């Protein structure tokens, strides 16, 4: 571990790796110890409600897990949730960034208002949307629908996953906006001006100048959002509790149910192992993307 650089130069007598050691060691422990325990438990018969039944279970938990239709439904829900929110926030965020880049009266304040949802804790935004926006009888949305002569929608029972997607997208749209807006500020005005002089319309400017300029920023947005979207929990916990049925149970919530509601440690651990494998598949893809960004 304490290899000195090839040149043999150590700085101020401190070896470079000893500086990284605390951070790396702690992260390693944080990852490896629980991971090992999770894998170990996943092969055990271990239910906190049935203390006498503990013992080696072999692949029993996995067998049970993979034949549980809830697992597949939870995986599907996770993918739909992540995909939809990413699509909405990246496309919406790009358009909003272009809008808020234009000069207009009170732009600074408008910008601050538009990015505010990013600072709101997920539990609060979920509660506000559930009780004050989407409530079937007294919510603002049903009031608006009534004004327009439309039938009121009972959001969480008829469109449960859509409702969750709306809430999560509302939280992350400002984040995308914030990043992309900053990226736009480094766009060369003269270049846009010159293109316009040469007869490029607003669409051509957007697709041939703005969008290529935003490419790296968009990949950063996708990467960071993906980390957080794969593990969406509070929004579901507070609003639908995974229901109705399994309609809004994503992988995170599925494991939570097995672990803390059914007290089945073995089963929950097997679910955890599956979630970790899934996350790693995504991670490989993401790490490649980031690695590319590192190169340049």
């Amino acid at each position: 571990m304490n290899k000195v650089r090839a040149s043999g130069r150590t700085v101020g007598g401190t070896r470079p790796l000893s500086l990284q050691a605390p951070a790396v060691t702690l992260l390693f422990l944080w990852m490896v110890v629980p991971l090992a325990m999770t894998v170990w438990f996943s092969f055990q018969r271990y239910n906190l409600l049935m203390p006498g039944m503990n013992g080696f279970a072999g692949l029993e938990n996995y067998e049970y897990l993979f034949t549980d239709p809830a697992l597949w439904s939870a995986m599907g829900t996770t993918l739909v949730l992540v995909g939809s929110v990413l699509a909405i926030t990246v496309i919406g965020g790009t358009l909003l960034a272009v809008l808020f880049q234009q000069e207009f009266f009170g732009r600074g304040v408008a910008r601050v208002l538009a990015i505010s949802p990013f600072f709101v804790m997920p539990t609060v935004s979920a509660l506000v949307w559930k009780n004050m926006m989407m409530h079937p009888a007294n919510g603002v949305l049903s009031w608006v629908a009534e004004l327009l002569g439309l039938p009121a929608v009972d959001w969480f029972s008829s469109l449960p996953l859509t409702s969750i997607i709306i809430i999560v997208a509302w939280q992350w749209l400002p984040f995308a906006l914030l990043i992309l807006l900053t990226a736009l500020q480094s766009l060369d005005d003269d270049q846009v001006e010159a293109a316009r002089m040469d007869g490029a319309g607003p669409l051509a400017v957007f697709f041939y100048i703005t969008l290529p300029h935003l490419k790296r920023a968009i990949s950063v947005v996708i990467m960071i959002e993906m980390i957080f979207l794969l593990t969406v929990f509070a929004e579901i916990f507070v609003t639908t509790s995974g229901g109705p049925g399994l309609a809004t149970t994503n992988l995170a919530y599925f494991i939570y149910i097995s672990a803390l509601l059914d007290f089945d440690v073995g089963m929950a651990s097997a679910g955890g192992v599956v979630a970790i494998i899934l996350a790693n598949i995504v991670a490989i893809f993401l790490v490649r993307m980031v690695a590319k960004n590192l190169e340049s």
Partner: protein
Amino acid sequence: MTTVKTGQVPLAHDSEMARATPRKASMIGVNSRKLWLTVLGWGVAILIFFPIFWMIVTSFKTEAEAIADPSLIFAPTLENYVEVQLRADYFKFAMNSVVVAFGSTLLALLLAIPAAYSMAFLPTKRTKGTLLWMLSTKMLPPVGVLVPIYLLFRDTGLLDTRTGLIIVYTLMNLPIVVWMLYTFFKDLPKDILEAGRMDGASTFQEVWYLLLPLTLPGIASTGLLSVILSWNEAFWSLNLTSSQAAPLTAYIASFSSPEGLFWAKLSAASTMAIAPILVFGWLTQKQMVRGLTFGAVK
């Protein structure tokens, strides 16, 4: 770094005449365009901000007004705030949030600064791999390791303690903190530290007197993000705390039971829970965004 591909667009530079004419002709057009943009920009901003606005407004209504048809005309009252405070002590939860968010941020910075320093200025073959590995630990879903962490915390007495939560949040944010600091440090010209070294500065002096002052804005933006992420984190705080160390996320979740109509009180509690971090975010948003982009945006 940020070269833009413009090959697709013809960019022949015309004479000044051609530049000037369309500008003059569109002077009036520009003003009406600005007006439309103002309407559109503010419309979108208000639409996005509306749920927060409505929550704050509702917190000053009576319960009856809160469930009546939406209206902005009412006599504001503070009774919700008083009643919410009677039910659960806001300040205890807020204190926990402050201690945990700032404590974990400080600890993460302490661990990350030396690591990022050595990665940026003394890179080895393994540096890039280590960085990517660190980031990949962020993709480990917390639920996957919830059970062992819960059991470990139970057995070591860390359950429902601030210390326990600080440990978890420090490790949760450490990868992002190292990454961001690495980006900022790498931007610093190497000669500056080299010069310090020539003058006989020790590693500690080099970091303390040269690196930290020069990269303070970057460190600040990293810290800000870490504070916000910790403040709003709900998974660990809901599962690892109950009464003693519960931060504001748990405070709010305790109001989420569906029975009874108490929207005004819920709004009051929510407003109090997000007010500190919202103001903090407003004040620091410009600073923060620089670090979020991992140097991808310059």
